[in-house]
Every structure is written in C-alpha cells, then in structure tokens.
C-alpha cells in the first residue's frame, strides 16, 4: 500500500453517505468502585470536509468517545456497544491489526500533550519517516525524508529542513503540536481527531493552531473532530457542534444553532462562562455552579438537574435527544422546557447565560 493519493485505500466521499457514522455508542468501564458509563448512547455523522466540535466540561466523555472510534479504549475491563462505520465499513468488529491500518492511514489523532505520542529519543523527522515507511515499506529513506520536510513545511514549521533533525524537546509547545499534526498527516488520512489540541497553549499559539486546522480542512478537505471545553474555540473553526454532558449528547446543531439559538441550559452555562472581548463586561459571569456529575452514578432524570436553576417536576424523567423546534429537525436537545421558556430564560443581562430566574 502506498500513501500517495491515487492508491489511498478509501478516498473521502466515494460512496456518497457520511464519511463516519456513529450509532448508539456506549462505553463502560468496570472499576473498583463500580461501572463507569463514560459514553452513554452517542450518535453522530461526520461528512467529508466538515469540522465537528465536541464540547463539554472535563469528565463528560469526550475523549473516551474519540478514542473509541479508533479502538483505543478496547480492554478487558471496558464494555463497548454500538456501531462506528467509516465509509460504511464497521470498525468496532475489526481486529487490532486491521485497526492499525485505519489509524494514521484514514483517521489520525492528536492530543493535548504531544509528548505522549512522540518518542523523546528519536528526532521528529525520524518519527515521521518511520510512520510513512511502516505503512509502505517501498518508500525509500530519501523520499520519506523529503516527505517529512514537506509535511513540516505544510504545518508552518520554519526551517523545516533543519528542524526535521531536532528532537521533540527542542520544540516549543506550539511547534510540537504542529509537528504532531505533521505526523498525523503523513499518511494522508481523511479524518483528523484533535483532542484538546490547544488547551495547554497560550491563546496566541492557540490561534495559530486553529488557523492551521482550518487551513488543512479547507486545502485538503480534511474532516476534523475537534474536542474542547471552550466554546470560544468552537466558534472559530467548527461547522457543527455536539454538546456532551455526563456521557450523553445534550444538544447538537450547527454553529449558528448553538451560538444564536441554544436550547439546553448547559449550553447556556458554557456560553455564559466565556469572558467576551466583543461585548461589554457583565457584572458577573452567568456561569454554571457546581461540578460535573460522577459517571459512576448519574443523577436520575435529567443529568444536569442538580446544577440547573430552571429544573421543574418533569425533569425527574430522562429527556430524549429530540428536535424540539418544529422548523429545525437537525437541532436537537435534551431539555423539557418549552422553546418559549428557553428563549426567555437564557437571556441574562443582555447575553446568554445560566442564572436563577428572577421574580
């Protein structure tokens, strides 16, 4: 197999349907304290060339969702249900060897801390070269070396022909993240999963990495799943958004839906938590109080109930992920409030936020 485009195993969009289709994904872990239901019924589709954001607080199941897509959560104490299809091919039943081929070649993943997936004792170039040659032993060393330099250039690393021989620790945090993206791109995957790629970086470096992700998305049609706790980041790059809470998707919609017509109080709280340079300063940030629930035993009914200032009797029942706005079947949420109530309650000091209703 070669990593060149003409022989790439599956090119995006060939079969028409979604590139990636996730259906009823559930991931549980057996632990000493009991079963942790980290992901509890997640469905989504990723279209070729789109950027899908998964947003939520720490512990909401974002990383486990992403890792499970490429089989990284398989273990004796994990229990995985549901289906993950890549161009119609089921991934959950593939063998580890088959999955190895999917990783890198079709789906690349980058993490918050690039050091975890880089080998500190090899130069950055050597790691890229090995990735290329592991998938295609026919590529000569010299060609692979040249490709590595091109990749580093493509992700905006200056002096790539010199830096290719540097070790990961000789790179700054932002450069390391670029190098990891370059490694991910080595085999021309059709999907990039970026799990909090900018969380450990300064905002100035974050802006550069987000620009890079968007560039790659536009220039290569690279479909991207971007995981973050920060809706500000989402606004900068995403096309569609999944908001996760307690292992479930509590709202999903387009960027416009989520920012201009958010339906779930949790989404309001995430929006209200943002300090905004584009708006006058509010007296207080209309944020979410308390902490995310333990996935060992979620609250009954709506999982957000203990932190929701708008809860009422009906919230003791679990709300389904449903289209609750008749005009918009793709905008879905899990909250029992009526659309009219939502419009009224989410407004706090002229912006969207989560606060005890007054009066």
């Amino acid at each position, binding site marked *: 197999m070669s990593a060149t485009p003409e022989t790439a195993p599956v090119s995006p969009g060939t079969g028409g349907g979604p590139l990636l289709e996730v259906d009823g994904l559930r991931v549980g872990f057996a632990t000493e304290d009991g079963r942790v239901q980290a992901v509890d019924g997640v469905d989504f589709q990723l279209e070729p060339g789109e950027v899908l954001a998964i947003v939520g607080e*720490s512990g909401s199941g974002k990383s486990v969702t992403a890792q499970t897509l490429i089989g990284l959560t398989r273990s004796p104490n994990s229990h995985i249900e549901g289906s993950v299809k890549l161009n119609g091919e089921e991934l959950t039943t593939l063998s580890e060897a088959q999955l190895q081929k999917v990783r890198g070649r079709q789906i690349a993943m980058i993490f918050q801390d690039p050091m975890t997936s880089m080998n500190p004792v090899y130069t950055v170039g050597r790691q890229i070269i090995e990735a290329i040659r592991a998938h295609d032993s026919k590529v000569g060393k010299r060609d692979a070396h040249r490709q590595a330099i091109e990749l580093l250039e493509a992700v905006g690393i200056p002096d790539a022909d010199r830096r290719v021989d540097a070790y990961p620790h000789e790179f700054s945090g932002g450069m390391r993240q670029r190098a990891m993206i370059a490694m991910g791109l080595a085999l021309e995957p059709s999907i990039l999963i970026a799990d909090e790629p900018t969380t450990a970086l300064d905002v100035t470096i974050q802006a550069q990495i987000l*620009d890079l992700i968007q560039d790659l998305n536009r220039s290569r049609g690279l479909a991207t799943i971007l995981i973050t706790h920060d*809706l500000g980041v989402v606004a900068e790059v995403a096309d569609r958004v999944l908001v996760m809470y307690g292992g479930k998707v509590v709202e999903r919609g387009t960027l416009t839906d989520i920012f201009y017509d958010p339906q779930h109080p949790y989404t309001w709280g995430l929006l209200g938590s943002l300090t905004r340079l584009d708006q006058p300063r509010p007296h207080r*940030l209309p944020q979410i109080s308390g902490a995310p629930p333990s996935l060992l035993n979620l609250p009954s009914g709506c999982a957000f109930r203990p932190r929701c200032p708008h809860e009422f009797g009906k919230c003791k029942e679990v709300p389904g992920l449903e289209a609750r706005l008749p005009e918009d079947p793709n905008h879905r949420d899990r909250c029992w409030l009526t659309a009219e109530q939502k419009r009224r309650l989410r407004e706090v000091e002229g912006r969207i936020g989560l606060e005890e209703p007054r009066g």
Partner: protein
Amino acid sequence: MGSDVSGATSTEATTAPSGALLEVTDLVKHFPIKSGLLFDREVDQVRAVDGISFSVDKGETLGLVGESGSGKSTACRAVLQLLKPTSGSVKFEGQEIAGLGRRELRPLRREMQMIFQDPYASLNPRKRVGQIVGDQLKIQKVASGGELRKRVEGLLDRVGLSPEHYNRFPHEFSGGQRQRIGIARALALEPKLVICDEPVSALDVSIQAQIVNLLDDLQDELRLTYVFVAHDIGVVRHISDRIAVMNQGKIVETGPADQVCEHPRDAYTKKLLAAVPIADPRESAARRAERTAAG
C-alpha cells in the same frame, strides 16, 4: 506577633499619599546563564524582568498579561520578595521591601499572598486540606486548637468548599476545587494584597468562570487588592480595573482595562487581543477573513 503590629504602624505612617498599596519602580530580575566545566562562569543573563514599573491602588485589580516567558511569574515573585530582585524598588504601603531580610519580611508575608497556576503542584499531597489551609494560621500563631479548626472551616465555606473537606487530601479534588483550596490558604491570614499567578489558565472555561466570580465576590467582601496574571487578555479584561501588558520582561502598555482592549496602542497588545477567540461565529469568521486577506 509584636513586630507585626509595630511593622503595621510604622508602614501606615509612611503610606504614600497616592493611596497606592503597591508601588513597583524599575524592577529588574536577571538570571545568570552559567557555563564551564570546573567553574560556574556567568556567560550571559536571562532578562526575565527588565525594568518594570506599576502601581496598584487599594481595592483595585491590576491585570498583568503577556505570553508564556514574558516574565510575569518572575515579576510576581520578585514583587513578593520570593526572589531577590536584581535591582529596583517595591513599596508596600509606602514601605520599601526590596532587599529586606527574611525576618523583616515575615510580618509582611501576612499582608501579601499568592495563588498559583498549577493547583496540582502547589498543594502538598501528603497534607490534609485543613492543614494546608490552616498551616500559616498556626505558624504565625494566629489561632490554634478548636479556634483554628473553626477558622479553617469558615474559610473552606467562604471559597465554596464544604467543612467536611477538612480531612481530605488534595488528590481527592478536581482542578477547580484545588484552586479553591489554594485561595482559602491565601486568604487565611487576611492579606491585603493577593497576587494571582495564572489562577485559571489550567482550568476548564466553566470552572474559570466560577473562580473568576469567586475572586470578584471575595474582593467585594474582604476589600482585597489583586494583581491578576494571565496569558488570555479576555479573562484579564473581565476581572481587571487596569491592565499592564508585558512582553519580553518589559511593560509595553498600561491603562484602564476597557481602554487597553478597545483602543490598544501597542502592536503587542493588538496581537494578544487578536488571538482571543470570539464566541460569535459571524464575527470570528469576519475576523479570520480579514486575517487571511492580510497575509
């Protein structure tokens, strides 16, 4: 304790008429770069803080913003005399504290406290929460026994933790809760000045907002004065009355928070502002289009 009281009165007598609680002038902190096999020869210097001046009024919040490596933490430590400044003056309530010895500084330690970025590294993992928060009260002989416990429980309550957390260990807490523990510890001695060195940079946005609101509330309740440090000028603008922008060891711009953010004068300030994500997709798309057009 005795020296503490006399220290307080003597400083009051010399309080600057400006009402500044903290006045920093030409503060410099250089670190030597050493090399050599047998002898540590100083070959160069890292100019971490390279002559900065600012003042903070009572009850005010000064935001200190800049990228990693711009010298913010070094500045904080040099102000608090946790690092010996290379040169320059630091006046607290009008009293020069730069160059004071350990013993002379002790009473001032009560007045000036610090909150750190990393809520994991900054709490001793072997100590219980009650001990961490109460240690300084005990060491400075402010309280002991049942009184100490009551005060610590009061502090925990004030920062949004439960008194039942008294006997727990730091690892049992989330990042946000650990930051609350750090805040309770900093407040134990009822300081006047709290220097918050990137207290929210490592936290989820939702938890950042909780901590920012908590710091706001505590300031109102306890009439605290803050220096608030971050790399995100969006967060800094929200909490600060005035902002000082730091780049490569120097302050490049100072002014009222809204003015600095709405009418930045320095190119570096503009760069920091342009990097903050805009949580309004239409505006952020417009800005991105501008940026791509520009180069």
